[in-house]
């Protein structure tokens, strides 16, 4: 009985302590090192922020929902805090809403219940294009901005040919490679492969059986678990397309697509430079120095440079007929509310995506800069001097392309992952795998 009493008392103590801690907790917003906020300024406090703080006269209040966590989430919150200090007309309340999947659910509920925010950050944003709840960015953006942002990013935010969302935090897949392993294998660490054939040659040199048990312990090449992204990239590099021009069916089972998937399968079965179906382990293997080359998102750069005990190199994805680097990431949406709030919302979106902030986001998170003008900013040169690998992220943007966003994209990506799994495990030919995938998706899209 006494144990039970002790436990009961400790539970109550926890509640009391937590309740006491609350009024004194000064920063209800999660921040680690609050960067700027001077005490008097009404910053991004939670809505329980007391009404007594003298709000600057008539700033339009708007809400911003975002879905980035960890260090990236903090950067977004810091940027919003800075906007609140510099803007004379808008005050943004920023709310964390989980992952891209969570915020998508929440927005769907909010649209139905008419409790939408003013601005939201979301992956796959164009799918809300038909909802009638958003203001298409094409109607708001200036001509100067249209020209300054790379075309690939505009394509990424189109729905039925019209730009509906604003590019914000985007990433691209890159080829990471272990410079030390390159040197040890007799390859030039400053000349990473630039074509598919060079990739195979390098990978073969990097696949080694170091303990003589007949199985490779060091692999030449692997990719992260989002294999659909890299396969889509390869299909496009081979001149193929994912979606037909009229947007009504997927066409990756074209000869170019099949060739790309065949190349992928050969890496496992014929050339034996990639372990079959072990993508979840790839990042850890690379960081531990047991993988020569890894295809993964550009956002992995900061993590791997910090954790790896070897020299990390990064390169643009190797090309075949053309170089093509697909874009991923999320965008900002402006919702239909009142004219005044929409104006404030657009002011906020423009600010978050201007050249300075695009560069700042890039420096802090390695999300790629979306504007051509960023490359010319002086701060860029300093940053590249400190972190030379990030220059590659900028250089590749001219090859950036967009895989069109359509309603069945999520399912389509899963079908592509299944197709990759099939050829890696040798349980199907590339043609059959892609034919199956395409027929499933095309049926869902309502076609033959």
């Amino acid at each position, binding site marked *: 009985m006494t*144990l*039970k009493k002790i*436990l*009961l008392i*400790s*539970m109550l103590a*926890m*509640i009391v*302590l*937590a*309740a006491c*801690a*609350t009024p004194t*907790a000064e*920063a*209800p*917003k*999660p921040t*680690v090192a609050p960067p700027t906020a001077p005490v008097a300024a009404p910053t991004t406090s*939670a*809505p*329980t922020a007391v009404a007594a703080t003298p709000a600057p006269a008539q700033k339009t209040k708007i809400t911003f929902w975002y*879905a*980035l*966590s*960890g*260090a*990236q*989430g903090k950067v977004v919150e810091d940027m919003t805090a800075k906007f609140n200090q510099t803007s004379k007309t808008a005050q943004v309340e920023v*709310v*964390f*809403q*989980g*992952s*891209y999947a*969570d915020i998508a*659910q*929440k927005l*769907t*509920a909010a649209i*139905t*219940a*008419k*409790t939408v925010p003013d601005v939201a950050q979301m992956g796959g944003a164009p799918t809300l294009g038909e909802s009638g709840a958003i203001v298409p960015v094409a109607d708001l953006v200036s001509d100067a901005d249209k020209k300054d942002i790379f075309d690939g990013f505009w394509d990424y935010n189109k729905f039925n040919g019209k730009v509906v969302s604003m590019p914000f935090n985007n*990433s691209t897949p890159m080829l990471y490679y272990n410079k030390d392993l390159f040197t040890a294998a007799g390859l030039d660490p400053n000349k990473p492969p630039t074509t598919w054939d060079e990739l195979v040659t390098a990978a073969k040199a990097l696949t080694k059986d170091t303990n003589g048990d007949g199985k490779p312990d060091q692999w030449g090449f692997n990719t*992260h678990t989002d294999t659909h992204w890299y396969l889509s990239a390869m299909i496009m590099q081979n001149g193929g397309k994912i979606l037909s021009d009229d947007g009504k069916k997927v066409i990756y089972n074209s000869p170019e697509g099949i060739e790309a998937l065949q190349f992928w399968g050969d890496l496992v079965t014929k050339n034996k430079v990639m372990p079959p179906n072990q993508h979840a382990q790839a*990042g*850890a*293997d690379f*960081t*531990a120095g047991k993988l020569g080359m890894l295809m993964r*998102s550009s*956002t*992995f750069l*900061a*993590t791997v440079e*910090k*954790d790896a*005990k070897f020299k990390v190199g990064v390169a643009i994805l190797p090309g075949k007929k053309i170089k093509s680097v697909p874009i*991923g990431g999320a965008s900002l949406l402006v919702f239909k509310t009142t004219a005044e709030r929409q104006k404030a919302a657009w002011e906020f979106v423009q600010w978050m995506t201007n050249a300075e902030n695009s560069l700042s986001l890039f420096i802090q998170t390695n999300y790629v800069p979306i504007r051509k003008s960023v490359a010319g900013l002086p701060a860029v040169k300093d940053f590249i001097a400190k972190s030379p690998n990030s220059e590659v992220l900028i250089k590749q943007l001219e090859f950036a392309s967009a895989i069109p966003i359509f309603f069945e994209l999520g399912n389509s990506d899963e079908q592509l992952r299944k197709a990759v799994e099939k050829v890696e495990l040798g349980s199907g030919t590339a043609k059959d795998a892609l034919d199956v995938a395409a027929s499933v998706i095309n049926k869902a899209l309502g076609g033959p």
Partner: protein
Amino acid sequence: MIMPFVWMISTSFKSQSEVFAYPPQWIPTEFHWQNYVQAWNAAPFPRYFFNSVVVALAVTLGDLFTSALAAYAFARMKFPGRDALFLIYLSSLMIPHQMTILPSFLLLKNLGDLWAPLGLDTYFALIAPFLASAFGVFLLRQSFMQIPNELEDAAILDGCGRARFLWEIVIPLSRPALATLALFTFMGNWNSYLWPLIVTNSDTLRTVQIGLRYFIGQEGASQWGLLMAAAVFVSLPVVLIYLMVQRQFVQGIASTGIKQ
């Protein structure tokens, strides 16, 4: 069975690069105690804990109350349509949770338009939808049916009314089932992530599970050491509750429930 917990505690002391070291290190080379401090400060956990405890306790007590009353009616009272009603009630268990999210959300929004404390972004939104559960009724009905009728007859002979019979005789005899229900309800509500995320926007109302999400990076940059440290202190209350009801819980599984 304890391995995941051991791994969780072990990882909570590691630095990021050691988390994925191969072969796996069970004992970290350096103990990063600051993971706990950093994790605690990364999100307003004191408030989140307060909310989680309040909500989970309220839901547990509410659920016990409503389920006991309903189970008593279904188990020991006879009225027309009793069995059909019970079957209908039970069939509600077949509705997937995802299907009820949107209707519940709309209902709360409309209630909030009538009277704010009943709307979205309130404790009501977090607690009310879970105050009754078909599972609880089912579990307790099974247990209440085990009470022999002779007991009830004797009680009535001695002048005991229904409410008193329920409160003073049936419930004490059903401690294992009640403890089980309390544990499951508390745990289920403590672990609930999607609903609190959807109905709240204010940090002052959110729960610890949303706090945990801060550590899971979007495109692979999760901070595993911090996440594990946070997971350790988030799972502590559930472990405490389990220890409290452990004796009854084990009894509930082992015995038939008859105390004669």
